[in-house]
């Protein structure tokens, strides 16, 4: 039996079959969480197991580009899941550079997300008129793509500004200082409505322009698929995110395999030895920090366009922690790990915990009575407080503790980290 599973041909067949079966099931039942998870499971299996590359591409392409968009038409929540997963995956990949590769614990990562989001939000809405002459704002939606680049630059700059003092500090101090600086960015966003109104303070900025998608709708029209704007945007963002994830992953891999990636790992492992090998400490760390920040900045701009509304409340410590959890869960330094971690946490947070809460509510509505003779319980009395969706912090906390104790190298460990984490003096 075990041998059978090591047989590549058998595995390929198995995965292809399960991808088809689960994919079909998802198409038939787009609202079934189980079908969705199993489809993703098939995708993951295709990636993880030892099967021919062309099959991996085929299965991945079919699921990501056909099955999920198709099912998404029937249940647009899948797009929401996909886009959120994508946004977080890109950020997790960015944080992966900082934490995973360079070994710098950054607890204020959401700050860069905020910088990116505000960059587009301010200029893609009327907000900029508040402090700029000309009254040409909001800029047309097509500028969005330009501003994604601007957001990248702004976030990287912020990374350098925050990093230059913070990165001089030792590891655990760095954590608490980045936490503080991240909080500072949020407080600034919340307070820069006076004396000059830049961020509109707690009121937030809305509405924000979205990139124009007439061409996108027209494109699908040609294939006989007609969509309204409201239908087209989720699909558009889904594809946009897929493209960005592709780029970001590529950047991650390329950096990892360049002299910069090696320098980061060297610094993470042994600062003294790295310096003795000619690697300048601060510039190299700053580079990691700015790189990570720029990923987050780009996704911030996308977030602003998707959400149409930006307010300081979206950029709190829990966001930073959530992204950290994704990196840890997937495996520090591991690129597929970061994506898997992002998917797991996002799906858990956005869907599974809430689905569980809904089941609880259904139980309550049904008034189901459990009768075990001695013990009788009416589910109608089930307290609200038990809803799992409320306890995301508990879930994250537990994930962090358990992972560190039992599997510090993560679900898909990076080759290099296994060695480091399992070390025993």
């Amino acid at each position: 039996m075990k041998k059978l599973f090591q047989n590549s041909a058998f595995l390929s067949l198995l995965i292809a079959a399960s991808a088809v079966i689960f994919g079909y099931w998802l198409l038939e039942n787009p609202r079934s969480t189980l079908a969705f998870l199993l489809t993703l499971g098939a995708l993951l299996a295709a990636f993880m197991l030892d099967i021919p590359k062309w099959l991996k591409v085929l299965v991945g392409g079919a699921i990501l580009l056909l099955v999920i968009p198709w099912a998404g038409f029937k249940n647009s929540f899948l797009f929401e899941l996909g886009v959120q997963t994508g946004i977080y995956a890109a950020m997790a990949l960015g944080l992966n550079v900082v934490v995973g590769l360079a070994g710098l614990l950054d607890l204020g990562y959401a700050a860069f997300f905020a910088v990116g989001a505000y960059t587009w939000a301010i200029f893609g809405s009327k907000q900029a008129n508040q402090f700029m002459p000309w009254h040409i704002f909001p800029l047309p939606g097509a500028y969005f793509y330009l501003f994604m680049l601007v957001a990248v630059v702004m976030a990287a700059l912020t990374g350098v500004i925050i990093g230059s003092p913070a990165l001089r500090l030792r590891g655990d101090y760095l954590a608490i200082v980045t936490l503080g600086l991240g909080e500072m960015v949020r407080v600034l966003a919340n307070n820069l409505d006076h004396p000059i109104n830049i961020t509109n303070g707690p009121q937030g900025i809305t509405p924000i322009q979205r990139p124009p998608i007439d061409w996108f709708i027209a494109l699908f029209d040609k294939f006989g698929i007609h969509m309204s704007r409201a239908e087209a945007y989720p699909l558009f963002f889904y594809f946009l995110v897929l493209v960005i994830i592709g780029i970001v992953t590529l950047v991650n891999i390329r950096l990892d395999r360049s002299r910069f990636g090696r320098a980061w790992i060297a610094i993470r492992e042994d600062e003294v030895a790295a310096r003795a090998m000619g690697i300048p400490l601060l510039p190299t760390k700053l580079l990691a920090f700015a790189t990570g920040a720029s990923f987050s900045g780009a996704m911030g701009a996308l977030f602003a366009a998707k959400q149409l509304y930006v307010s300081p409340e979206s950029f709190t410590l829990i966001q930073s922690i959530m992204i950290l959890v994704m990196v840890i869960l997937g495996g520090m330094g591991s690129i597929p790990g970061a994506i898997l971690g992002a998917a797991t946490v996002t799906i858990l947070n956005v869907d599974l915990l809430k689905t569980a809460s809904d089941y609880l509510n259904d139980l309550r509505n049904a008034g189901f009575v459990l009768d075990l003779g001695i013990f009788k319980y009416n589910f109608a009395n089930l307290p609200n407080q038990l809803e799992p969706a409320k306890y995301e912090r508990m879930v994250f906390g537990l994930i962090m503790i358990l992972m560190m104790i039992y599997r510090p190298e993560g679900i898909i460990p990076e080759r290099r980290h296994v060695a480091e984490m399992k070390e025993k003096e």
Partner: protein
Amino acid sequence: MLEVLIQLLPSVLLEGLILGFVYAMIALGYTMVYGVLELINFAHSEIFMSGAVAGAETFILLKGAIANPFILLALAILIGGTVAAIVAILVERLAYRPLRKRGTTNRLVPLITAIGASFFLQDLVRLIEGLWHNAFYRRYPSFEVFEATYTLPNLLGSLIILLTLWLVFWVVAYFFYWIYRTVTRTQGISRKASRGLWIAALVLTLLSAVIYRTTIFGDLGLTIQMKSILVVVISFAMLYGLNWLVHRTKLGIAIRAVAQDAQTASLMGIDPDVIITYTFLIGGFLGGVAGVLFGLLYTLVHPYVGFIPGIKAFTAAVLGGIGNITGAAIGGLVLGMLEMLGGTYLTFLTNGAMGTEYKDILAFAILIFILLFRPQGIMGEQVGEKV
């Protein structure tokens, strides 16, 4: 405007002092654990919170049964401290010790665990409180005895103002003297010059006392509440007690020995694990008591109440020199006063452009500033990097 600033000064410093004592007590928990394990125990803010919540529950449960508020307070402190100590020990046992036993060299690992523990505890308390009372907030009841307000003599306020002015003038004078020395490239400071600075500052102080006599010697409205007095007295007693424990008892010496060199300490027959447990117990107890006092002062507590005071207390610990017990206490007091000064005066100084909302940022700014320019803190000693 200057008159307003002067007039508020004694009240600001007094409020800062009260707040500072609370910070000092929390800071001790951070500093003790750091001293022994070199770990920033992120979960300490939640240990503080569990103490605060447990104290509130004690008050609420026993309010009907026990009429005397002082006995009630004593019980709340005892129970709040104990609960916090138990939580602290459990965190150590379940989250930190397994890591220590595995012996990872990666410094991020225990830190991430600590953050996880902190988040876990927040929602655990929320779940318990939610199931128990369907409540998020717990309120500390008010008692007339505790709320009673006493007016302090104006003379005391005047004295505080004069002393502060003297100090401020001295700092300013010293600053200019320092620039002068830098420009003229002279080394060291002579005794005579030093005395001269003190006298110059004194003269300036007396001069301003004459100019602003009506303000300084006028009605300063310096009041203090019974509960604030209690907070100061209890925290002072606790800090003093801790000082005694750490310096005069065998356990205290053992704690310090483990903090300095755990391996050698084990050669003395000390089990480091036992000492670490004690450290968490003591730090947790103090944190819990701080939580009860915090609740008494500010009325409402809830599962997320620990975060901000936790960060501030950590700042205080770093300010005083992390790992140093006296330093933590001094750092707490200094931070409390700075925060009150910033929170109150910023509005006046920037004419409303920046206000109280920046006071938390002030704490972070102080933290970063210290870490960059004097990482060993006020009381700490420079430790050479091991290569």
